[in-house]
């Protein structure tokens, strides 16, 4: 009997140890630090190990956009023109070393680099651009180009010589270069490997691109490895000998790998970013050996359907905008990693409204909440009303927060949780009362895609035919036709003010901030301003030897 008691005590002891250890992960809180900019001379060589969420098992940038594939594979491919850094609303040369634009923004002539080569040694020429544009405009059977809107703008493409192509647009548009420079528009389709063999896949031909790195090997479920392209057209780049992307199926494993020094840089992807407790653990355990960098992710929004009577009334919508406690949302939903905001995230060129002073967004809630109650009563809903909030399976947490916060205003709601494809379809068909979704942008061109009612999967398809949406469409059409930078900024602000404040067509909840961690040996890593930019090219990264 005594021995049994001893064994029992042993088990209890083991359990007690586990219970002491476990809260270590859950209780710590903190804010991310800032990314450290390096001013030292880059050292060539080295192969960093980077985390990747799951398998990058599809490969055509024309057809897929997930960061899972983009993070490792976009280093293999270049673009005609690329987004600038750190101002991502600007455009920089890539395969096109320069370009001319006609006065009416309709004719774009691109002059290609002379030294650009595909990874298999074949020269990159204007014929490759022609093939890529034609493939994008008229995808072969089995290929679906998600970026056809940009390609559809090109009415005519002329190959003037091996190094020059001219694109004539259907109509003049100053934002064409910005759209062309979207990170997804990667040239992963060498004409000599694709023509006559469509539908072809980049992985099936060995991921041949013109980018700073070449494909080395892919062990599904484990590793995607790339190596330095010695013939890269930018002299001196890349600095690294290669990169190993470790494929991780579980976020906790990903964190454990970084914590034990098996990763140099944590991966990018929702669920894989560092949480506040994880950041605190790393700071405590690794001290100065770890660096953190944050950027803004897509913002939570409450989208209304005006066919549900209460939401057709601007006073109700304004009441909800005023009522929501966004500081509390940041604490509850984002564990402190986020800010109250709207469409353009902080640091973006068009983020010109100081949301911290705006009624509804500001920290002081008392007056705003009184006004919210008054507006609701004035609209005839003194005792509140009930509605159903559509959301997807992974977004229950912010949905529940919205429900809880609105209770104080007398508005009760229930969650209708569906999978993402169903949510998206019901949104497009207008089969919802209110919908919880995420959205964000850094430019007018993105705002056009998100808010113009011609976009059936955008924010406002349910508002089509209503004067508020017609006004938004008119403002957007005018804004994207404007070339003047100052005027574009003014119009972006007007649009944001009209959508979010004057008409409260949607109610933003908060803008999450996501954090990556890397070892202090990693230098030159460029994080994007916002998650949607997918700005993760590694040619500027170098490793400092200890």
């Amino acid at each position: 009997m005594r021995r049994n008691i001893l064994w029992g005590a042993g088990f209890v002891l083991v359990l007690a140890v586990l219970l002491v250890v476990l809260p270590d992960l859950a209780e710590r809180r903190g804010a991310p630090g800032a990314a450290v900019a390096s001013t030292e001379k880059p050292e060539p060589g080295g192969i960093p190990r980077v985390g990747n969420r799951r398998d990058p098992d599809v490969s055509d940038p024309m057809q897929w956009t997930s960061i899972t594939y983009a993070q490792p594979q976009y280093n293999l491919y270049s673009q005609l023109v690329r987004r600038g850094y750190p101002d991502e609303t600007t455009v920089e040369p890539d395969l096109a070393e320069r370009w001319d634009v006609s006065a009416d923004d309709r004719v774009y002539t691109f002059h290609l680099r002379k030294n650009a080569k595909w990874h298999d040694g074949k020269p990159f020429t204007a014929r490759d651009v022609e093939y890529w544009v034609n493939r994008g405009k008229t995808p072969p059977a089995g290929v679906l180009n998600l970026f056809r809107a940009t390609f559809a703008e090109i009415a005519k493409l002329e190959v003037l010589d091996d190094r020059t192509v001219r694109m004539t647009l259907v109509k003049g548009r100053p934002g064409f270069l910005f759209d062309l420079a979207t990170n997804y528009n990667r040239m992963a389709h060498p004409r000599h490997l694709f023509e006559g063999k469509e539908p072809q896949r980049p992985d099936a031909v060995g991921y041949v691109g013109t980018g700073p790195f070449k494909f080395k090997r892919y062990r599904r479920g484990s590793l995607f490895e790339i190596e330095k392209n010695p013939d890269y057209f930018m002299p001196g780049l890349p600095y690294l000998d290669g990169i190993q992307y470790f494929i991780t199926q579980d976020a906790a494993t990903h964190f454990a790998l970084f914590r034990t020094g098996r990763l140099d840089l944590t991966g990018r992807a929702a669920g894989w970013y560092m949480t506040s407790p994880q950041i605190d653990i790393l700071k405590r355990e690794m001290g100065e050996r770890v660096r953190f960098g944050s950027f803004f992710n897509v913002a939570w929004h409450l989208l209304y359907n005006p066919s549900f009577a209460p939401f057709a009334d601007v006073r109700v919508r304004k009441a909800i905008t005023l009522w929501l406690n966004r500081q509390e949302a940041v604490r509850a939903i984002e564990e402190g990693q986020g800010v109250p905001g709207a469409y353009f995230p902080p640091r973006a060129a068009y983020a010109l409204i100081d949301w911290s002073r705006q009624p509804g967004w500001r920290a002081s809630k008392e007056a705003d909440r009184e006004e919210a109650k008054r507006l609701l009563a004035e609209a005839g809903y003194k005792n509140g009303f009930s509605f159903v909030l559509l959301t997807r399976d992974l977004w229950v947490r912010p949905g529940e927060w919205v429900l809880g916060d609105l209770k104080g205003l007398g508005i009760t709601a229930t969650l209708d949780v569906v999978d993402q494809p169903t949510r998206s379809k019901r949104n497009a068909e207008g089969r919802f009362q209110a919908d919880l979704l995420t959205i964000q942008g850094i430019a007018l061109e993105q705002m056009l895609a998100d808010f113009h009612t011609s976009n059936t999967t955008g924010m406002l398809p349910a508002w089509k035919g209503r004067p508020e949406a017609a006004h938004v469409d008119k403002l957007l059409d005018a804004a994207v036709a404007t070339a003047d930078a100052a005027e574009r900024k003014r119009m972006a602000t007007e649009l944001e003010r009209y959508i979010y404040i004057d008409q409260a067509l949607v109610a933003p909840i908060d803008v999450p901030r996501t954090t990556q961690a890397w070892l202090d040996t990693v230098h030159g890593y460029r994080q994007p301003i916002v998650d949607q930019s997918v700005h993760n090219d590694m040619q500027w990264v170098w490793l400092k030897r200890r």
Partner: protein
Amino acid sequence: MRVYIAKRVLLFVPTLAIASALVFLVMRVLPGDVALAILVSRETPGVVANEDDITRLRAQLGLADPLPVQYLTWVRSLATGNAGLSLYTRRPVAELIGERLPVTLHLAVYTVLISLFVSIPLGALAAVRQDRWPDYVVRAGTILGLATPGFWIGLIVLLLLVLLFRWVPSPVYYHVWEDARENVSLLVFPAVILAWRFSSYQARMVRANLLEVLRQDYIRTAYSKGLAEPIVVLRHALRNAMLPVLTLIGGELTALMSGTVILENVFNVPGLGDALINAMRQRDYPVVENLLMFYMTFTLTINLVIDLVYAVINPRIRYAE
């Protein structure tokens, strides 16, 4: 025996036919549209898919055909040994199974070996020392093994490795013939965790069966002849007590083929279970359907093999011709 085997193999055909129809129907009855799932997963704000895209993609994927046509196309391709292409990656499903199967088999073999190595001696020890401290220890350990979810132990093991040793296994999987050390260091933890559970079942089964056998007359006779306890237990009793354990091992192998997905994820083991869950998430019909058919064929085959091994181990068992 040959006729018996032939009959059993022939019975595979109607079993698989019914199973294939069920799998096909269940996949189609589930809510959601694969074309929509693919398009939405591809979408980013500012990138737009519309009804035309959905229709076009459905046609491209062969989903616009009537269901009986789709089913017959699939069955025909199965019969010709062509498992089709993944709707997502457009890679052959057979290639995917070929990549993942060795990994899962590795894990399964390690698990079964460890569990047999542990469970048989412990089960026998518990039986011959019934109601004494070794028996209590084995019973407590097996109850804990059965009651604790493997994925939870997996996370705890990972956490303890980090906290105590500042070390976790490399996330890159190598086959044993490529790098035996890396292979073992990655698979040993999930294998031991899985083996704890399986050896708990087996040890309890060995203990119960052995206790029953030890009470048989022929065992008493063996003891009365003056044979030593180890000889009586190992040579006469244990062999007869092992038969039901064989059935358990068959079930374990089947479970290990598909049921280790969370542990696979925690330890970054790129096995079949992980592939199945990913395919289900993506509604990748050909992958899910063909993987399930693979599991069924595997289960039927394992059951047949176990039945045949019964006859080898126990000469009293004879299958009717």
